[in-house]
């Protein structure tokens, strides 16, 4: 036998494994084995792709463990049992069971310490045996833990994964496919960014969308907030349309449209056929790519190249080479002009990315705010919000938001400031836009008292007494502090007081 070295993985296909993955629901006759093979073929994926992969495993009803390995070699995992998620393993202290019990106000520290110290039974069982918690309370915290842990995996972080079929055990506490769709809705609205969608959909931009009207849950899916401001989408999808055409129809709400299409593709309600729409029979992928990239500023360009090539920012040469390869794959004679322009843009990327890498080395340590600094800023901002100093809060939050410090309720507080200012000044605001923003709040923030409080304020802004009351009650239930800051309808007396400047 002659000797050979194993094939080099770095030259494997652009988009193809991912493309196969996202086209899976367009091939209903695909065997289970082939579906598993498509998952196995995936190289590095990002956390946003995980949303689809988990959905696929649930839909195929597989039982086993999805092992997820991050770039930092952190190991996480998800256990599945016949179409349900039964366990999330994530080495994350914030979502330790005990921490969550404390956060939810279900146990006292002293009781938790006792439960940790004993080693006769599991913590939950011990707390039940001591009549400190009920089975229902334990179940609700385990579910909360699963939701929070899943949310933490959904990010732009890169992962490798493998699925191991195994006889894992069933669990009474689990996330079903339909419950998973609820989570997907929140992640897609709140966590995915616009650029990801633009590049994600490029291969299917002009492909005919196939609508699957056999699925029972379709009405439930279309009733979700994501579709509120996309009237007639369901009907449009049934008429052999494409993303390209839908973008024209919903020109003022394109991001929401892409989010909606992606959400529907996870539920298998839509998939893409190989056929293009009749108005777009010619392939013009390079033109679309050029239109997407031509006006990008330096930072945006660097991010966009990473998204297109699916290679992490910082690997400049690898991104550059992969991009040129993509140009070759998608090239047709009619697009020569766009290929040339894109090659120039690629060179521009190369220069800018090198410059940025040099600058980053110098400035990153100086500029980046750490978590505790942001927490302190947010505490001050929250006091401003409670004191009706909405504009001051808005200025600080906007700065944080533009500095990409998205986490830790920044987005939620920003919406709070906007609604508060609108209520205070009585200026007419775009309710629809605010509603979209509220839908886009980070999923984990949607569990917080602050979120319900902001929803209550939004109810007040919309003159919807029911929404106002329900959400205010939820906020108080989560955190008693909100009793001090009631959200009430404006009465004649309160209006009179406001006019006099009396609080």
């Amino acid at each position, binding site marked *: *036998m002659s000797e050979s070295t194993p*094939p080099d993985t770095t030259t494997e296909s652009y988009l193809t494994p991912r493309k196969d993955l996202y086209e899976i629901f367009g091939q209903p006759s695909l065997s289970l084995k082939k579906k598993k093979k498509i998952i196995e073929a995936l190289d590095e994926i990002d956390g946003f792709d995980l949303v689809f992969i988990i959905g696929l495993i649930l839909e195929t009803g597989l039982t086993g463990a999805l092992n997820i390995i991050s770039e930092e070699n952190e190991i996480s995992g998800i256990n599945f049992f016949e179409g349900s998620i039964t366990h999330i393993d994530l080495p994350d202290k914030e979502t330790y069971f005990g921490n969550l019990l404390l956060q939810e106000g279900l146990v006292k520290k002293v009781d938790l310490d006792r439960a940790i110290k004993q080693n006769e039974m599991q913590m939950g069982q011990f707390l039940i045996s001591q009549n400190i918690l009920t089975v229902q309370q334990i179940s609700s915290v385990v579910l909360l833990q699963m939701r929070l842990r899943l949310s933490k995996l959904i990010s732009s972080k890169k992962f490798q994964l493998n699925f191991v079929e195994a006889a894992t055990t069933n669990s009474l506490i689990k996330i079903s496919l339909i419950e998973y769709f609820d989570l997907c809705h929140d992640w897609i609205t709140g966590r995915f960014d616009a650029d990801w969608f633009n590049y994600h959909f490029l291969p299917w931009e002009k492909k005919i969308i196939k609508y699957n009207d056999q699925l029972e849950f379709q009405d439930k899916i279309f009733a979700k907030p994501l579709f509120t401001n996309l009237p007639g989408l369901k009907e449009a999808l049934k008429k052999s349309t494409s993303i390209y055409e839908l973008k024209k129809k919903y020109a003022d709400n394109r991001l929401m449209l892409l989010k909606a299409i992606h959400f529907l593709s996870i539920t298998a309600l839509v998939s893409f056929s190989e056929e293009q729409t009749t108005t777009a029979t010619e392939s013009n992928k390079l033109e679309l790519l050029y239109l997407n990239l031509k006006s990008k500023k330096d930072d945006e360009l660097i991010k966009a190249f990473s998204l297109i090539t699916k290679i992490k920012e910082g690997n400049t040469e690898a991104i550059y080479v992969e991009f040129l390869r993509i140009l070759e794959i998608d090239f047709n004679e009619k697009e020569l002009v766009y290929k040339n322009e894109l090659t120039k843009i690629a060179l521009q990327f190369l220069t800018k990315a090198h410059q940025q890498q040099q600058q980053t080395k110098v400035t990153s340590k100086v500029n980046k705010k750490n978590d505790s600094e942001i927490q302190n800023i947010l505490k001050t901002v929250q006091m401003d919000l409670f004191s009706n100093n909405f504009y001051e809060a808005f200025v600080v939050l906007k700065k944080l938001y533009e500095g990409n410090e998205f986490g830790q309720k920044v987005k939620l507080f920003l919406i709070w400031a906007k609604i508060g200012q609108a209520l205070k000044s009585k200026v007419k605001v775009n309710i629809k836009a605010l509603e979209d923003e509220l839908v886009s709040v980070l999923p984990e923030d949607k569990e917080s008292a602050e979120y319900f409080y902001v929803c209550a304020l939004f109810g007040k802004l919309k003159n919807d007494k029911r929404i106002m009351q329900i959400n205010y009650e939820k906020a108080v239930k989560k955190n008693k502090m909100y009793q001090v800051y009631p959200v009430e309808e404006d009465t004649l007396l309160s209006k009179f007081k406001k006019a006099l400047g009396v609080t």
Partner: protein
Amino acid sequence: MSRCEIKKVGSEYMFDGTIDESFATVVNEIKPEPVLKFNFKNLKSINSTGIREWIKLMQKLSASSIELYECPKPFIDQANMVQGFIPANARVMSFYVPYYNEDNETEKKVLLVYGQHYTEGKLNPLPPVNDDQGAPMELDVIESKYFKFIKG
């Protein structure tokens, strides 16, 4: 068999079942020796907690020379993705490669042996594999990914 069981048969530790959260309690049976031989013929699967526990075991046994025999696909998948899963003091002495015939949906696992089918950084051309009826079978793994660990 779901949880992992470890039995010493002759000079080999035989692993049976699933490497998972229960692994931490059973590995105490393994005592450091100059050369340790682990056999995974009956290993069914490994989950994320099991991977972490395995890495801990490897760290604990860093002074031994570890030989890994009859490694199944779930084990090799982790070896290809997780740093430290097969540390420098360990070597895969043999591992299974799955084959498949799409026409009659039959599967076969072929054992590749160190020194015979592969050595450090080098994989010999894979032998042709036929099913029981003599029909040729296809490799049932992604070639470029599955043999990555051989490169070291």
